């Protein structure tokens, strides 16, 4: 592994939240005796990220993904544990550190609403002490990659959501950050804009070598960009490893796809596994225990013989795996928090 540029050890964050009960009595009591409760958001996680990696950070709403990103970018102080990013303690917010990272969030604004983005870029140039030469090269690159030319001279408030996202991206990356934390970068965008942002992030990593930690609810983002994923749930690390191994690790089953010839289209295949889809025209999907998948597939081939037109044996779709993990359905390996890397 290359040099670790992000190193997280036992990182914790607990929010103190005011508890509000309903009813008149509780409201009156609340005036004199406010109750707070501790809500753990991140419960002691460990991982490292090497320079140049693109890592997907997965978890359901409230899992602690954004809180972790905010701690790593220096916005939040942790309540426990430690982290270093590029050798800095993020929450000390050294200006030298801030010049080398970026946190881009789908709904956050870097830009002044009433003036064209190009003018905001000039302000950022001075704030980040970007040289004229670097500014030109980076801006030209971003304009080309994100197709910004028609957008940057319009007041930001006149841009559509997707257009604004693109200029926000440019604003956040003008200083050439070595580490980019991306929180839901495609949130609310249409399908073609999502694809464009994905291509852009991939190009950003390829061209500048930037290390990227990405959260997204869209598995397409993760599949397109990340070879490695970190899965957290209820603030605990559930999985850290290759995306390709996630299904094997987290889903204790495989999916058998069988296409039957006309005469056998109505055959009952439930003896070979749990039937999860049957289109009635001969295409059936079965869920079989991972360990028994080869034997059951072989039996299915032997017993159906010529009635079988086609057969496939696959890992379940990544969305299904993630869904099962987050809904607490998963078995075996993921039952306990693990770090597999």
């Amino acid at each position, binding site marked *: 592994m290359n040099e670790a540029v992000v190193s997280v050890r036992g990182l914790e964050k607990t929010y103190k939240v005011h508890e509000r009960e309903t009813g008149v009595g509780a409201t009156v009591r609340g005036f004199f005796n406010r109750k707070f409760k501790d809500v753990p958001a991140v419960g002691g996680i460990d991982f490292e990220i090497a320079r140049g990696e693109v890592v997907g950070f997965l978890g359901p709403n409230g899992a602690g993904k954004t809180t972790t990103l905010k701690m790593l970018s220096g916005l939040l102080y942790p309540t426990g544990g430690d982290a270093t990013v590029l050798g800095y303690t993020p929450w000390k917010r050294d200006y030298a550190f801030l010049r080398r990272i970026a946190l881009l969030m789908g709904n956050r604004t870097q830009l002044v609403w009433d003036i064209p983005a190009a003018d905001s870029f000039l302000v950022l140039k*001075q704030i980040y002490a970007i040289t004229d030469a670097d500014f030109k090269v980076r801006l030209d690159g971003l304009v080309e990659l994100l197709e910004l030319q028609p957008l940057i001279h319009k007041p930001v408030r006149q841009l559509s959501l997707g257009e604004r996202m693109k200029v926000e991206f440019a604003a956040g990356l003008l200083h050439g950050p070595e580490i980019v934390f991306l929180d839901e970068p495609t949130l609310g965008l249409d399908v073609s804009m999502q694809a464009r942002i994905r291509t852009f992030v991939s190009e950003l990593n390829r061209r500048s070598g930037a290390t990227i930690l990405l959260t997204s609810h869209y598995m397409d983002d993760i599949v397109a960009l990340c070879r490695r994923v970190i899965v957290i749930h209820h603030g605990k690390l559930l999985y850290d490893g290759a995306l390709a191994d996630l299904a094997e690790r987290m889903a204790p089953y495989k999916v058998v796809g069988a296409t039957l010839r006309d005469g056998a289209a109505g055959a009952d295949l439930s003896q070979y596994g749990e039937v999860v889809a049957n289109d009635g025209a001969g295409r059936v999907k079965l869920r079989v225990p991972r360990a028994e998948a080869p034997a059951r597939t072989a039996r299915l081939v032997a017993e159906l013989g010529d009635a079988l037109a086609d057969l496939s044996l696959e890992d379940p779709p990544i969305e299904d795996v993630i869904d099962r993990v987050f809904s607490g359905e998963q078995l075996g390996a993921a039952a306990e928090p693990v770090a597999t890397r």
Partner: protein
Amino acid sequence: MSMIAIYRALLLAGFQQMAQYRIQSLLWMLFAIIRPVIFLAAWVAVASSQGGSVSGYTVGDFAAYYVILTFVSQLSMAWNSHEFEWEVNQGRLSAKLLRPLHPLHYAVVDNIVFKLTTLPVLGLILIAVSITFGARFATQPWHVLAFIPSVILASALLFIFGWIVASLAFWATRMNTANTLWQRAAFVFAGQIAPIGLMPVWLQALSYALPFWYMQGAPTEILRGAVTPERAGLIIAGQAAWLAVCYVGFRLIWRRGVRAYSAVGA
């Protein structure tokens, strides 16, 4: 890269932004003028009914006092605490905290832009008010020289004090009441109701002890020419002392506040 370059870029963007809201700025400025002019009219009425003066203040003195007070108020006003609450509660502060520049600088630039764009119009209005009410200025050249550091200190003091109040938004969701409280205190102690010399002795003593008079009343009295050189020196020293105290307080509160910031919403 120097702060000068940063300020130049921020000022340019600020003026561009302000150009979008010319009418709003003008209305805010007129709003700021209404209250002192009402007080001026009231004191003129009182003075006229008492033979032309109140405790030695003639109609011309009142006019001079309120014209300069309006000018000083415009130069020293700061409204950050109102916006800051929104920025904290909506998570808008996050973008600023992630940049290598203290968020305070954006507010400094906002202030400069607003004041520079509204001062020419304000100046014309104040000249008209001066002529209408026959303002009598006893200003010597040295008063003007002493006024410059005094009004700069007053502006800095009010600005930093506003940030201290604003920083409470890190802990409290609604800061409007705290804002209102300190603005009402300023209303009484800064010399907005009346020149401090017309107040009961105990209220004068309290005003000299609190920071509010040093934010508005003090530079007003200097520019009006109502102070001796020794008193002007004492006033400026008092302003500097309060500024130092508030700055230290701000640094402490800010450091703790940022730790408490939960960056919700963004």
